């Protein structure tokens, strides 16, 4: 009885600590800007940030940048997903190919590919093309590697059983290989999506003409701090929504 009560009490207490922590942080931020006279160029007033955030959402001025970023993301992800799954499937067909290519891909995956951004800017220019290419390159590897892992580790007994019962190539793929590999591929797609989003916002921050990352840098250079903080909140919210959607799709796909 008593232990049950304590168990119920504990999550409430830690929730209270979390809420208190966030409130203390917000109050400190507010006091820093009003009472302790921290320069508004370093830390804008939270109420002004909130006002600017509301203004951005209400007037819809984010739409242009959001469209650019989402278009880049969609194209990059479509390219890396189709190429990654195709390459992964072809490699996974023989054990020999897996042993040739998998260490190669893992090695390239370990190099920070963001290094190639200057090269991509040189090849594709400052516009969306270089962001799409970089996002597609970075997200290709997790997708390809997980596709190889998914198709490569199908239980041999299942394949042999299906074959001995006379399954055709297509039937084998549809009823044995695909269901076994699908959950792992979904995980790879989710990881690829997350890194594609990150690298596209990142490359927009570093060198670009439009997009959400570019907007933040533009405001930072114009020293419009309140609006910049508001845009940071906006981008973080967009990223959280997109990542949650991807995780939900992944969970749905894993159940299939």
């Amino acid at each position, binding site marked *: 009885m008593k232990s049950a009560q304590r168990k119920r009490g504990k999550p409430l207490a830690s929730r209270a600590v979390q809420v208190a*922590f966030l409130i203390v942080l917000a109050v400190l931020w507010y006091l820093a800007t009003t009472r302790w006279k921290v320069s508004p160029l370093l830390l804008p007033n939270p109420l002004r940030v909130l006002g600017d955030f509301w203004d951005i959402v209400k007037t819809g001025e984010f739409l242009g940048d959001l469209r650019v970023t989402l278009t880049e993301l969609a194209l990059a992800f479509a390219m890396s997903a189709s190429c990654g799954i195709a390459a992964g499937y072809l490699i996974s067909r023989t054990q020999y190919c897996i042993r040739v290519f998998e260490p190669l891909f893992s090695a390239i995956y*370990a190099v920070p590919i963001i290094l190639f951004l200057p090269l991509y800017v040189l090849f594709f220019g400052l516009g969306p093309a270089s962001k799409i290419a970089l996002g597609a390159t970075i997200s290709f590897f997790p997708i390809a590697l997980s596709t190889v892992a998914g198709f490569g580790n199908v239980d041999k007994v299942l394949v042999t059983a299906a074959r001995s019962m006379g399954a055709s190539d297509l039937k084998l793929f549809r009823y044995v290989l695909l269901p076994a590999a699908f959950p792992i591929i979904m995980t790879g797609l989710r990881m690829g999506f997350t890194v594609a989003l990150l690298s596209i916002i990142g490359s927009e921050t570093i060198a670009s003409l439009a997009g959400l990352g570019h907007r933040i840098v533009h405001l930072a250079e114009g020293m419009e701090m309140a609006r910049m903080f508001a845009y940071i909140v906006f981008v973080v919210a967009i990223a959280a929504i997109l990542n949650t959607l991807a995780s939900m799709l992944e969970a749905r796909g894993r159940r299939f």
Partner: protein
Amino acid sequence: MTSPAAAPIRQLLRSPFVARIGVIALLFCIWEIAARWWIDPMFLSPPSRVFTSLGAVFETRGVPAALRLTFFELAVAFALSVAIGVVIGLAVGLQPFARRSFMPIILLIYATPQITILPLFILYFGIGAASKIAFGVSHGFFPIVMTIVAGVQNIKPILLTSARSMGASRWQILRHVIFPHMIPSFFTGMRLAMTGVLLGVLLAELYVSTAGIGYFTTLFTQNFDPTRLLGLIAVLAAMAIVLNEIVRSAEVYFGRWHTD
């Protein structure tokens, strides 16, 4: 019917390692041919020229200093990530209440794309090395916190109870039970932290830089000098691979004792 002398050669050809080298060589050949005959030399130069001009990259005034500076930023950022990560990880992980309270907050911060606040780092820490180190730390210390907390959490309670019942002090429990059990996950965290620090420092370098490698990548890009740009990228990639390999082999080496 093959002659007996040909058998080892055929075996060699069948080994995946040789085939992997072959794939890499083939890619380099395609790159060489494409760069020599099809693509404008303003944009791409053949690998042979890139490798023969590696010396020219190092002779460019300021490049050796820039590489040293970037290496210094990486080292300091990594050391700080490990130190801060271990302190926060132990502080949060050792107390179940603190873990339940603060882990969701840490996870929440970890999940936000830090690249959005890169301009803030430049604003607070200046355009010198400090902002790169700070941004590297912001990428590097979360994996350490995560793995330390996970490592502390995974200790079997029976070990703690038996140590306590045999009269071990708090420090003795830390030293002889908790630390040895944290080592494998700690080195996994080090490997992830190295990946994060590399990403953070290079992102900040590419964003704005006055003396580091970011300055030279921008310079070579704007001068349409792909030979030296590719050379510099190759050197940096090699540096990243070596650093990754060091922490990876440390992970394997120190994770040995626990494989029961």
